């Protein structure tokens, strides 16, 4: 007993702070309040899946974390840095550009640059932002393309790729900035069913490498497989959260049960 009381704080001098922290996030579009006070924290190396019905605010939350949407109220923190820092004008612009470099985002519709080759898609940001030699950036991109299984597509244009290949390039493109966290907004929703697995596989691989990930998904099975924690959103609030086993087998809230009944039946 006394042993517990005298034990020094874990982690020595460095306090363990969440990698992503959202505090009381509020966001309205016109008269519609889409986020009604969201709190969320993701620890380093943790994988959190966000599930919930269409229109519940999942994308808005993810986009707010990356400041593609700006909150009306509340705070977003990335590894101890406030994303929506109280800065204005050019100072904020510089700040947010720096913050976004530490956050990879993967979109439902890939958003690959169609006028650039796969290699150029992956190297554009590091080349512009990290001041590395063309060779170093290329070497990094080759490694990443190899990792997502597309080493042979480096010189292809996105229009020549399947949806699954496009999304894997998009993941490689985000990873090329060597981000601290990865945000996925329904990365497989736009894909033909037979192409979903190849993208999920890449995400699982990232999970094994302890990448911190926040994953919005409609795939309950995948969420159950990779997530440390599942968060159910509805109507702009987090209805409940917990380990996937508990959320999927013993949800507490009626709304969660109703949602899962519908999804697991489909």
């Amino acid at each position, binding site marked *: 007993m006394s042993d517990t009381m005298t034990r020094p704080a874990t982690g020595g001098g460095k306090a363990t702070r969440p990698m992503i922290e959202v505090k009381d996030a509020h966001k309205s579009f016109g008269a519609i309040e889409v986020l009604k006070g969201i709190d969320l924290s993701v620890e380093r190396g943790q994988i959190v899946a966000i599930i919930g019905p269409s229109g519940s605010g999942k994308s808005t939350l993810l986009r707010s974390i990356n400041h593609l949407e700006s909150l009306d109220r509340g705070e977003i923190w990335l590894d101890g840095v406030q994303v929506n820092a109280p800065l204005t004008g050019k100072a904020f612009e510089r700040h947010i550009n720096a913050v976004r470099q530490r*956050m990879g985002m993967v979109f439902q519709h890939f958003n690959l*640059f169609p006028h650039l080759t796969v290699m150029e898609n992956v190297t554009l940001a590091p080349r512009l*932002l990290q001041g590395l030699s063309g060779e170093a950036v290329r070497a990094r991109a080759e490694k990443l393309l190899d990792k997502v299984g597309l080493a042979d597509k480096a010189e292809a244009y996105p229009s020549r790729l399947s949806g699954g290949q496009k999304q894997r390039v998009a993941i490689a493109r985000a990873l090329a*900035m060597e981000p601290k966290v990865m945000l996925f907004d329904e990365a497989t929703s736009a894909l033909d069913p037979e192409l979903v697995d190849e993208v999920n596989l890449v995400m699982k691989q990232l999970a094994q490498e302890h990448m911190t990930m926040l994953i919005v998904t409609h795939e309950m099975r995948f969420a159950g497989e990779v997530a440390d924690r599942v968060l159910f959103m509805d109507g702009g609030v987090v209805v409940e959260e917990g380990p996937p086993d508990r959320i999927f087998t013993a949800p507490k809230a009626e709304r969660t049960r109703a949602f899962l009944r519908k999804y697991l039946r489909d």
Partner: protein
Amino acid sequence: MGLDFSVVPEYAHFLWIGVVWTTVLTVSAALLAFFGGILFAMIVLYAPRLLAWPTRFFVWLFMGTPLLLQLYLIYFGLSQVGIDVPALVAGIVGLGLHFAVYNADVIRAGIVAVDPGQNEGARSLGLSRAQSFRYVIIPQAVRSVTPPLGNNLIALLKDSALVSVLGVAELVHASQLAISETYRPFEFYITAAALYYLLNLLLEAGLRAVERKVEATR
């Protein structure tokens, strides 16, 4: 009385002067129209309202009124208030502004048509607004905008004939001068038409080369 083109060679130098001035007019006005178009599009899209709204009004004014009237206004109107502009300059400015306005509309539409997801993809990587614009938005807009800008350029070449009313010895006016000495309107106007057609062919060949270059990556 049948057509007799044998008088044409004797007055070929008139027509050559016409071709030269038509070329000078077209090239100068096209440059003004191109850069003016970019400028107006940027202002309409991104400038503060204080600048954007007057520009929009100006665009609307130039689109809604005849080029001929604009040329008269610039040349004779300005002269009335004591600003004497050489006819060639008035022609270049009138043609240039008129087509700058059409180009601005094409360029604005081309930029707006780029999927917003492209900008989001770029910004999410940490690119600045300017970098996203430069490396992601513009290259895509350039592709969709090149063919309609080319069409505007061809229209500009043909509309340069209107500058004849200011007394610039471009192809139409030069033909008129030859006709006033020979009383052979058919022969000279047909020859002028053929020359316009040749200039157009050259221009189209040039435009196709540009489009091929733009399309090269895909």
